[in-house]
């Protein structure tokens, strides 16, 4: 009897101690998450909530008491031509990047994936612009596109054409910003595609070649299909980056002329930090967060689907 009781007690003790250990493991885990979570809470999630809250009030930095305004800020935003202009500029930039930068990056990745000499040097040169501060490259491109003495205009004049006021005209200013952005990021996308290309199983390529597939067929049926995830990732990152475009615009054009280069992020900055219209600026922030959230959601869903397919 005593022995059986002892055994039961020992069992209970053991259970209790594993439970205790598991509990303490949980506590350790929570403690380890705490620092990161604290900072993310304080500087991402709480401000996000605040942005939603502020977007419902009419306020400036200097009004002591914000007035509840319901959705008035949003209504005002959606009826403001300059908001739509900023949105259109951003979409134009995004489309431009996808038409210009991504195909170039894909081509470069395919070329860099060949067995060639000096590959590392080419790769470094092509990726290089990505590490240069956008402010610096904005400054460089302001010089390249300068009306007087800028090399682009010098070349035009050399060809007998008249110089263009690149950054001072609505039509060419945004194009100049696009060219700089493409210069900055194409190498980055090329590296993303290169990583995708290197994950293409060589057995598939060989199988396709055995079936009599030429270079083009291999590229279309094997490489492009395997590249799917990277392509999608690049498109989404490209969109996200475009919606955050700020530094180069601030340096090159200050959003002008007449809002021709004002992007979504720049619009929020102008409204909030220069016009001190906190309500409308926050409303635009909330719209930006929603747009980015949709994009991230798409990306997450897509990557999950591909992962499942792979396994």
């Amino acid at each position, binding site marked *: 009897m005593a022995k059986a009781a002892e055994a039961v007690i020992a069992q209970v003790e053991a259970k209790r101690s594993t439970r205790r250990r*598991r509990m303490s*493991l*949980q506590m*350790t*885990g*929570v403690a*380890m*998450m705490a*620092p990161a*979570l604290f*900072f*993310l809470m304080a*500087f*991402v*999630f709480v*401000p996000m909530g*605040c*942005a939603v809250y*502020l977007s419902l009030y009419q306020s400036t930095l200097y009004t002591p008491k914000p007035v509840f305004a319901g959705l008035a800020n949003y209504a005002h935003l959606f009826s403001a031509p300059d908001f739509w202009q900023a949105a259109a500029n951003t979409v134009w930039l995004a489309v431009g990047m996808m038409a210009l930068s991504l195909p*170039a990056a894909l081509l*470069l990745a395919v*070329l860099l994936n060949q067995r*060639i000499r000096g590959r590392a040097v080419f790769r*470094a*040169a*092509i990726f*290089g612009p990505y*590490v*240069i*501060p956008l*402010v*610096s*490259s*904005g*400054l*460089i*491109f*302001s*010089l*390249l596109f300068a009306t*007087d003495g800028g*090399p682009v205009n010098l070349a035009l004049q050399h060809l007998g054409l008249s110089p263009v006021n690149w950054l001072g005209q609505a039509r060419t200013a945004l194009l100049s910003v696009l060219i700089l952005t493409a*210069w900055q990021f194409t190498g980055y996308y090329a*590296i*993303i595609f*290169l*990583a995708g290309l290197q994950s293409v199983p060589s057995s598939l390529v060989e199988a396709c070649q055995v079936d009599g597939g030429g270079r083009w067929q291999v590229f279309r049926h094997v490489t492009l299909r395997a590249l799917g995830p990277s392509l999608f*990732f*690049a498109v989404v990152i490209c969109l*996200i980056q475009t919606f955050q475009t*700020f*530094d180069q615009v*601030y340096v090159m054009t200050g959003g002008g002329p007449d809002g021709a280069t004002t992007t979504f992020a720049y619009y*929020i*900055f102008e409204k909030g*930090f220069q016009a001190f219209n906190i309500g409308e600026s*926050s409303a635009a*922030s909330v719209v930006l967060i929603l747009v*980015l959230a949709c994009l*991230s959601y798409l990306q997450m869903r897509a990557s999950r689907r591909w992962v499942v397919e792979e396994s």
Partner: protein
Amino acid sequence: MKVQHILKAATYAALSVAAAACLAPVYWMIRTSLMPTNGLLSPALWPAHPAWSNFVAAWRAQPFLLYLWNSVFTNGAIVVLQVITSSLAAYALVFIPLRGKRWLFFAVLVAMMVPMQATFVPVYTMLSAVHLINTYGALILPYAGSAFGIFLMRQGFLTLPRDIVDAARVDGASEWWILTRIVLPNNKPTIVTLVLLNFVYHYNSLFWPLVATNTTNMRVVPVALSYFLTQDAGQTLQWNDAMAFDIFAVAPVVILFLIGQRYFIQGVAQTAVKG
């Protein structure tokens, strides 16, 4: 055979053109920084007499060392804090059977996509309430936790065999010991990648320092550069001095890139191919 030769030649040609296009603006920056002021409108591809004095003038025009110190100190602190908070959090996410882990990771992914441009008004208000605006604290604290850092560290930690961690636990090792003696030493490349990528990222970014600081002595390099163009120089902007100053600003990141190239490229590749 012949077709292959042509293709190879075309590959080299195309890559050379692309590399040249990437380097050309940098070349023009260097060329202009050496141009004498009276030769700024000249189409010369290289100055006949390089004016090295432009660098002296640019160095004297602005307290560059102060800006560089501001940048290096704040971004160094950011990166150190990020490595600490991110490795702790990633460890919990990977090796500890936490309840609600999936939600935590989801929160990290959400945090990763929210840019400062969308939250800067509340962050500014909060920091000014505790009198931190225009201090190093304002530049560092908002980035002490990094969703990207957690994400990257998690990717690295996942490649470590679980058995090692479990075995250490059975031997009675504490979680802290496992993290600092097993997990981190086995993830040195991930740490280096995080340090380099995020140091350069924060060194380069203009937006938040522009908002959070307002005196000359608190400027970081990108802010100083933007002022060089927009206000201090104004109408009489001398491109040669501006480019000389720009070279000072770019040099630290270019040097870091040349040293740690492998990590940059692997880091970017790693974020794209994810599980």
